[in-house]
């Protein structure tokens, strides 16, 4: 019997290959999308759960109320951890991590390898966390100063083909040498801690002046504690609040400052952490939720479409079913055959979806910045999906024909009566409506998102970001030395020294003046005389600096934004100040964008780099404009000269255009994601149209034949067939277009500089969907319309 089922199923497939392939493709796409989302959700939920004690590890966070200004940080001072361990019996283990955001260079023979995943870790690191140490003793690897643990891959990069254990390395070309005391397994991608080089914590005491004893000093360590199983969180929190008061809050009583420490579960960091400065993206719960909803929606709609199409086509089988029934196939057997066919097809769809997943995952990973792998999922998850997808869809697509079997009379079918479909099936229309609404809203939104992104990339930033590179110099003297050396290359045309650059960090201070109150928060930047010229920033009024000493150090320039904020008609000659020092304004520059276009240009005060060292704590950068050439060539010259001049200093550089485009990474991935979902929604909706029109064509075959006999032309028949679908599309437009308008206005409002909502997108989207839908309906109904009416009617 099985062989017979299989044979029949395959023959059917062969008879209608196009239909079968389209239907399978839709199903497989939906399955693939759901599959990827399941992989994604599973991976997001699996973060930081590989630690044996993952349920008991908590990270301390600090919640500060500074005169009503609330801030929360996932870091504490170095002193907190040991004190908690000492005072509270509930705290059974503790480890600290610091310095994870500074890259280090490992020098060997005058060249270096950069680790951007380095940090200091306390010796208890391997006790608290379950990172595996392949070589070395986890208890002692990080106890001595100047010992480091590196990961397997990083060891292979540093010492290819050699055993790195016990080798000495120099970091950042300082005098100290470090001994490799352990080789760790590579960091799993589902860990919120990402490292390839761990320095021992005592090293930090040796080479930095960090304060390890006071609770309000050097708030820059991640502190992790292991809590006992029976720890009462409420009691612990109370005790912690009391200790915090004793150690810290008492100092600030009456100053409006209050600090609270809280315990945040490590396994919740990925999904729920609201804090900044983690090594990976956190707080993804919202995304996970959205994606889960999308997965369910896609599954539901695609499943429905698939079932719809299959049922519509099953009408063709009326005769076959009748014959089989007459020949003695019982209802149970016929049901079995339907279920077999439908499960067979969905199983084929599932296999196809696996291929699609394999093809689409790289794209998904790129957009979502994930590291998903189909074979990384546990076997039971894949098996579960296979059963759910194949079983669920197979069952659903088989259930209607099977249900129909139970009330069917072979007599009628053999007489040629059609497989009667229920006439008005409301859910089917509702579903088409929903699909149209989603597709239309997404099409409009996608166009708006891309228009906004294009607007960004074409917008005048107030300076020229092309062919501009900055190199970090420790101080003014080194910067001048480097600039001098680089000026020997004809490739480099302009040079300037600056403390800030677009896309880099900004230094903001409150600026006072006699006629503005309470003062203006402004970015402060110190530059040399070539700044305007090099950046290609326009001067609005007044003049720029002509020297870097003497009276020039008493002068500043401001930007137009400052002038506007202050409400000055003419700023030249006015005095502004900071902490008792006053500066006279000698010029106003046009606004230029130091930050992304999400923010408006902020007020800025430009001072001259020179003998007065107000900027002493700020690093100085050498900004260089180069002629049109490859950035690799520029980089190799800069790097070579840097090493020649300053062999013991880290070479740190940025291309400005890259920094600028980094500012919009989220927007671009948002756009790509939108595009992907839009394409998916359209695909699904079109399959819905295909299913519905196939269904209608079958249902109205007799009517069409009669109309044809009575003289109806093909055109009017196509119109008749299209009218129903067009009606739903129009209703969808009424719902979707205002919705898209509303949400896109809101989205655009999140940008300081944005396009106005382009209303033409509404018409264009509707028209596009309309044309495609019409095309499908026409294609589908032409087949029915072309049929010889005599043939149709005689078998009625």
């Amino acid at each position, binding site marked *: 019997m099985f062989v017979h089922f299989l044979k029949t199923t395959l023959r059917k497939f062969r008879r209608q290959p196009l239909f079968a392939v389209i239907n399978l493709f839709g199903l497989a796409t939906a399955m693939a999308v759901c599959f990827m989302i399941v992989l994604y959700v599973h991976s997001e939920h699996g973060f930081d759960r590989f630690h044996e004690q993952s349920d008991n590890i908590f990270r301390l966070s600090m919640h500060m109320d500074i005169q009503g200004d609330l801030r929360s940080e996932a870091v504490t001072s170095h002193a907190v951890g040991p004190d908690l361990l000492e005072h509270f019996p509930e705290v059974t283990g503790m480890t600290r991590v610091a310095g994870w955001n500074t890259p280090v260079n490992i020098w060997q023979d005058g060249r270096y390898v950069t680790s951007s995943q380095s940090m200091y870790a306390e010796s208890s690191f391997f006790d608290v966390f379950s990172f595996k140490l392949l070589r070395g003793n986890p208890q002692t690897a990080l106890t001595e100063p100047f010992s480091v643990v590196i990961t397997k891959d990083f060891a292979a990069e540093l010492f290819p083909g050699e055993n790195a254990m016990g080798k000495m390395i120099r970091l950042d070309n300082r005098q100290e040498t470090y001994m490799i005391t352990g080789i760790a397994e590579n960091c799993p991608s589902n860990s919120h801690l990402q490292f390839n080089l761990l320095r021992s914590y005592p090293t930090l005491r040796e080479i930095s002046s960090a304060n390890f004893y006071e609770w309000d000093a050097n708030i820059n360590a991640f502190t992790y504690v292991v809590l006992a199983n029976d720890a009462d969180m409420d009691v612990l929190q109370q005790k912690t609040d009391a200790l915090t008061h004793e150690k810290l809050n008492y100092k600030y009583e009456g100053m409006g400052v209050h600090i609270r420490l809280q315990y945040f579960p490590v396994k919740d960091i990925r999904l729920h952490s609201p804090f900044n400065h983690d090594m990976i993206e956190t707080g993804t719960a919202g995304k996970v939720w959205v994606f889960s909803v999308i997965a369910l929606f896609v599954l539901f709609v695609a499943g429905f479409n698939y079932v719809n199409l299959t049922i519509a086509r099953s009408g063709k089988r009326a005769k076959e079913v009748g*014959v089989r029934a007459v020949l003695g196939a019982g209802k149970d057997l016929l049901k079995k055959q339907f279920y077999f066919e439908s499960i067979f097809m969905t199983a084929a769809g599932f296999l196809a979806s696996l291929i699609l997943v394999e093809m689409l995952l790289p794209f998904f990973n790129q957009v979502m910045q994930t590291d998903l792998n189909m074979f990384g999922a546990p076997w039971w998850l894949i098996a579960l999906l296979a059963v759910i997808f194949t079983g669920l869809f197979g069952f659903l697509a088989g259930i209607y024909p099977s249900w129909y079997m139970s009330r069917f009379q072979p007599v009628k079918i053999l007489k040629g009566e059609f497989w009667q479909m229920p006439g008005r099936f409301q859910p089917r229309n509702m579903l088409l409506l929903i699909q149209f609404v989603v597709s239309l809203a997404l099409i409009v939104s996608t166009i708006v998102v891309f228009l906004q992104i294009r607007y960004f990339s074409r917008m005048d930033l107030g300076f020229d970001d092309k062919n501009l590179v900055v190199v970090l110099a420790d101080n003014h003297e080194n910067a001048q030395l480097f600039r001098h050396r680089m000026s020997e290359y004809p490739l480099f045309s302009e040079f300037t020294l600056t403390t800030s650059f677009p896309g880099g960090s900004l230094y903001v201070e409150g600026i006072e003046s006699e006629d503005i109150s309470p003062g203006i928060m402004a970015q402060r930047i110190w530059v040399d005389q070539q700044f305007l010229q090099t950046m290609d920033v326009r001067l609005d009024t007044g003049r720029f600096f002509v020297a870097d000493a003497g009276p020039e150090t008493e002068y500043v320039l401001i930007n137009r934004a400052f002038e506007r904020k202050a409400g000055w008609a003419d700023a030249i000659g006015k005095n502004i100040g900071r902490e008792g020092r006053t500066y006279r304004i000698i010029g106003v520059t046009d606004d230029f964008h130091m930050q992304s276009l999400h923010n408006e240009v902020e007020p800025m005060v430009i001072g001259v780099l020179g003998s007065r060292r107000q900027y002493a704590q700020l690093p100085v950068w050498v900004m260089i404009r180069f002629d049109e050439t490859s950035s690799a060539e520029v980089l190799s010259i800069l790097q070579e000269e840097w090493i020649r001049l300053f062999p013991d200093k880290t070479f740190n550089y940025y291309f400005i255009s890259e920094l600028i485009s980094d500012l919009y990474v989220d927007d671009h991935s948002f756009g790509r994601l939108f595009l992907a979902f839009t394409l998916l929604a359209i695909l699904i909706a079109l399959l819905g149209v295909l299913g519905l029109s196939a269904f209608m064509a079958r249902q109205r075959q007799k009517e069409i034949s009669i109309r044809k006999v009575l003289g109806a032309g093909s055109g009017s028949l196509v119109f008749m067939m299209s009218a129903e679908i067009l009606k739903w599309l129009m209703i969808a437009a009424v719902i979707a277009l205002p919705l898209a308008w509303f949400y896109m206005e809101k989205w655009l409002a999140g940008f300081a500089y944005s396009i106005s909502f382009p209303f033409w997108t509404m018409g264009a989207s509707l028209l596009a969907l309309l044309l495609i839908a019409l095309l499908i309906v026409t294609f589908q109904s032409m087949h029915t319309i072309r049929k010889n009416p005599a043939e149709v009617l005689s078998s009625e």
Partner: protein
Amino acid sequence: MIKTVDLTKVFRTEEVETTALNQVSFEIKEGEFVAIMGPSGCGKSTLLNILGLLDNPSGGEYHFIDNEVSNYSEKQRANLRKRNIGFVFQNFNLIDELSVFENVELPLIYLGYSASERRKRVEEVLEQMGIMHRKNHFPLQLSGGQQQRVAVCRAVVARPHIILADEPTGNLDSTHGDEVMNLLEELNKNGTTIIMVTHSQRDASYAQRIIRLFDGQIVTEDKSTEFVLTSAAH
């Protein structure tokens, strides 16, 4: 073999009630060849469907090989049907996706015969009907006469006691029609009971007895030869 007593069939829609069969009583003995005739809408097909165990009567009794089956469930009827009745239809009703061999094989599959037994039986009957050389063809590759021949093969392959034929020559030209009628006559001679619905006088002449229906009632039961003679006399 078959006996009906006051067999009645009423079709109801929401507003209309139609009596398709009105207290029809007759008997057919084993080995008979009976034709059922009558104008369109007289209830022929309804009667054939009930006789063929495809449908239940609304009233009266139907004795099928010693069973009173008028109240049998679909499952019980299907069980009796597949063992005892073979069907031949006007429009052949072959399954397009299956080859000649597979179409003929189908009843045996549903009866649970082994693959080797099925092969033996199917080949035997194909040989007998002279279409063995077509066994791997599909229905759409055959002429109408050949298709009906395959349908007859399918009807007899399970060796049923009764063959029900519904206008078996209706879609065939006279040459092919005669061929099919000769096949049926041959089967009847070998002991199979045949009940045939037809419009054709010519086909009816093959039968030993004619039951004439009009508006759901039997108007005459006569020997076909006599009927042919009397109608010829008119």
